[in-house]
């Protein structure tokens, strides 16, 4: 067991200082990290009312002597670094020695601890930053830290805490992050005595992910492991069949520390390349193993951000490791040169990006257009532009052409780049954004007050495994969602049970839609006023329920969409105010031809 020292002033000042405890989740994080630093194999966290009333962390780690216990609650008292050089080679999660004292300052803190191999234990009570009791107690080897009445002496901060569900969600999120970094440790989280999460500590990352996100998720995870020189990247990434709307389920670690890193996220996305449809993100749990002196975690008080000494190498390692993992499973982005790892089998998945088919099979269905040489702002993905039209496309609006006259005015010519409908009226060419059009149609449908919403009940209620903030966000919007026809139930933990879905979206993957909505709501908050919040939720439901860009539409679908769009009140702007229709008057087109 290491002994605790008070850091000399100058060293203490070099450590980025900051508020450690902002909300229950930050205390949970600090305490669990301490348990992990103490070598625990089992960590149990108990919360009451989102951590507001009680946070208790029980570990079976090395424990502390009575003497060390007193030191531990002092500011800058740590057993983890002693001298300035140590700062360059931090291998523990904690090192600032400020968590326990900061917690002791804003809550009632009780620690009972017994070092391994010692007969009895010691308990200490800290209130308002002062030690108010110290006594010998009998307890199991290890440490139990109990925090009650968080922020009892700072009512202003207490007031700023979110709902119980949200705070519980944030706490659960930190447990997940740490559990993924320590798959050998068994974690258990209880909220108001109900089990929220439990991992087996088997050392298998997939088992941790299955415990968190459900076994369906774990099935679609591909192993990653690549070492180049002293750098090694290991973990799992999701196959292109398992994607989410946001990066919320991307977990990166440097050694055992959970980090947020734009660079790692960007390298991941780059590796998927065109396997990722627009607006979709893979899941991952990736751990970068790197010499402790290659990173400087001492940047941000919450220690989430890292700085790499050689970011370029890390980017390319990550990109290559992930691309190889995908290729091994038979997924290769078309914009990616083949690597040494050969695909085992083609899983028959259509890459989401452009597919340049050499195959004459499709001729007759696909008319190739040359890119206009005067347009220089062409996305390189669009090289080899395709226009899909069941009938051969003829860009002529005169009657008798292959165009389908839709109403008296608007004729449907075809689909462009799988994202625009090409249409024409008497003297103008109209490009219609298919996603926004569908969004507008659905939005108005959902918004109608005179319309009684129909809800389709499910024979088999479906569980939706979400992250903490996601399930909290949905529960907070529950009233609005129920008015739309969803029926959700808190299933304990962070999963929800869905008993009914809006009848209007039964054919459109209503659960996937709800999952995307959850991610979306968890990331950006809603307007405070209820009516505005309701509009916003409607807009987002419409967004996630609508046809996406990149989806190939059949003729009948295009006609239906166009007809429905033209019947809406504001066909030209989407619920977020973006344009749906862009038009080119004949005169402008003529001018380009120097007519």
């Amino acid at each position: 067991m290491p002994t605790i020292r008070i850091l000399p002033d100058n060293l203490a000042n070099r450590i980025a200082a900051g508020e450690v405890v902002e909300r229950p989740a930050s205390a949970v994080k600090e305490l669990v990290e301490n348990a992990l630093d103490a070598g625990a194999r089992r960590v149990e966290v108990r919360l009451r009312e989102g951590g507001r009333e009680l946070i208790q962390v029980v570990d079976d780690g090395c424990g502390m002597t009575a003497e060390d216990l007193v030191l531990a609650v002092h500011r800058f008292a740590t057993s983890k670094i002693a001298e300035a050089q140590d700062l360059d080679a931090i291998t523990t999660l904690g090192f600032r020695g400020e968590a326990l004292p900061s917690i002791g300052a804003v809550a009632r803190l009780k620690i009972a601890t017994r070092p391994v191999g010692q007969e009895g234990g010691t308990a200490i009570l800290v209130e308002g930053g002062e030690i108010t009791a110290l006594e010998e107690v009998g307890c199991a080897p290890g440490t139990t830290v109990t925090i009650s009445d968080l922020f009892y002496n700072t009512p202003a901060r207490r007031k700023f805490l979110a709902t119980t569900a949200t705070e519980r969600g944030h706490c659960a999120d930190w447990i997940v992050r740490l559990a993924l970094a320590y798959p050998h440790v068994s974690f258990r989280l209880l909220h108001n005595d109900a089990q929220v999460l439990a991992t087996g500590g088997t050392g298998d990352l997939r088992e941790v992910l299955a415990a968190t996100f459900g076994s369906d998720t774990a099935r679609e995870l591909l192993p990653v492991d690549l070492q180049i020189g002293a750098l090694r990247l290991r973990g799992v990434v999701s196959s292109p069949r398992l994607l989410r709307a946001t990066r919320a389920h991307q977990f990166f670690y440097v050694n055992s520390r959970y980090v947020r890193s734009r660079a790692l996220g960007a390298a991941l996305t780059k590796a998927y390349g065109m396997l990722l449809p627009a607006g979709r993100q893979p899941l991952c749990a990736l751990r970068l193993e790197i010499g402790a002196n290659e990173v400087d975690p001492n940047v941000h008080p919450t220690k989430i951000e890292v700085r790499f000494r050689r970011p370029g190498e890390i980017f390319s390692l990550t990109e290559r490791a992930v691309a190889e993992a995908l290729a091994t499973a038979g997924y290769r982005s078309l914009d990616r040169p083949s690597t040494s790892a050969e695909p085992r089998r083609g899983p028959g998945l259509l890459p989401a990006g452009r597919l340049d088919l050499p195959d004459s099979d499709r001729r007759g269905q696909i008319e190739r257009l040359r890119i206009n040489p005067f347009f220089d702002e062409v996305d390189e993905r669009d090289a080899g532009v395709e226009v899909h039209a069941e009938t051969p496309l003829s860009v002529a609006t005169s009657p008798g052409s292959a165009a389908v006259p839709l109403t008296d005015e608007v004729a449907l010519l075809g689909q462009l780049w799988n994202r625009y409908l090409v249409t024409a009226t008497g003297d103008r060419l109209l490009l219609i954004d298919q996603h926004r059009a569908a969004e507008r149609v659905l939005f108005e449908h959902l918004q109608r007050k005179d319309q009684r919403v129909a809800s389709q009940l499910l024979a088999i209620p479906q569980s939706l495994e979400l992250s903490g903030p996601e399930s909290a966000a949905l529960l907070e919007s529950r009233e609005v969602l129920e008015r739309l026809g969803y029926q959700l139930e808190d299933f304990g933990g962070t999963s929800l049970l869905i008993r009914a879905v809006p009848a209007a979206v039964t054919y459109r993957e209503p659960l996937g839609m709800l999952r995307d909505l959850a991610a979306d709501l968890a990331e950006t908050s809603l307007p405070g006023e209820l009516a505005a919040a309701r509009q916003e939720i409607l807009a987002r439901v419409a967004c996630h329920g609508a046809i996406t860009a990149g989806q190939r539409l059949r003729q009948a679908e295009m006609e239906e969409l166009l007809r429905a769009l033209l019947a809406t009140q504001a066909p030209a702007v989407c619920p977020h105010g973006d344009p749906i229709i862009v038009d080119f008057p004949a005169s402008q087109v003529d001018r380009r031809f120097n007519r």
Partner: protein
Amino acid sequence: MLKASCPQGVLHEILQTISRGVSGRSTQPVQNNIFLSSADGNLRLVATDLEYLSLDTQVPAMVTEEGAVTIPGRVFNEIVASLAEEEVSLESESPGELTIRCAKSNYHVRGLPSDDFQFLPAIEPEVEFTLPEGDLRKILSQTIFACSQDETRPILTGALFCAKPDNLIVVATDTYRLALRTLSLPLDVAEEKKVIVSARVLGELMRILEEDSSDPVSVRLSRRLVEFEVRNLKIASRLIEGEFPNYEKVIPQDPDKKLVLQIAPLERVLRRAFIVARLDSNRVVLRGEESLLRLSAQAPDLGSVEEEIEMELTGDPIEIAFNARYLLDMLEVAGGEQVALHLAGSLNPGTLRPLGRDDYTYVVMPMQIIA
């Protein structure tokens, strides 16, 4: 090098079937082709996406030389379809190329060498049984329409096959409704075996199966694969892995109301109501009292419809809303003259069964109006 010939009609018919197995979206170009080989007096044609569908068939042919080649599926199919009804000769003079001759036509098609073509692994059956072609077709037609289209829940995109010593049960559900069909016949299986078969492969199988035939279809199951063999065709697929939901829990135990209805008139009124219901998420409201069932639907912009139909009701009057499409899906394949609709409360599932039969059960969940 492949050299063989067979009549245009034979080749055309088989290509119609086989070319449906070409995925056209594999990342390996050769898998988008049809594999063609000649040996032992047969032509063999294979198409597979290596995932959910493999079609493998043999036709008798005049084989002059043994060999193999792969050819783009749709082109091959189109060419053969357009040929005269005469003997077609197929000849591959260099790897990856095929010359097709018939009457005065002479096509030269570039494919890919056959060496790279991959097959689904051969099945090592743990369970194998046969059943009459027509029966299998019927069972599939009564169930697989209820499979989910939602790729985010892969398990529900397939149907459960449960083979027991004395019957076969097939179950499909998209969570909105559930179709369950039992076929009593001695299967030569020692113990119960459950697998989930992709609706996609079952759909293809259904196209091939003939309604009135009693030819045997062999069904082979292993841990990961399923294979159906009918006449000269083998259609195989990887199984969907996972646990199918407990369907028994879904079937209501003792609904207290029972409606007996004539299928044909019920279908007609539902179709008429559907014209309006279509604009309101397919919702039709059923109100039953004494011997009359009233169906109604309304759409905000269009108007409303009311229909009446006779029935026999046991139990209290009822009012419940369903997706008309879900009712029609079942009625269209139910067979027989009458159905029994068992109901409890307006938020409880309804159960449809052909009257007097207990081998076909269809559970459909109601719709609720949020005021």
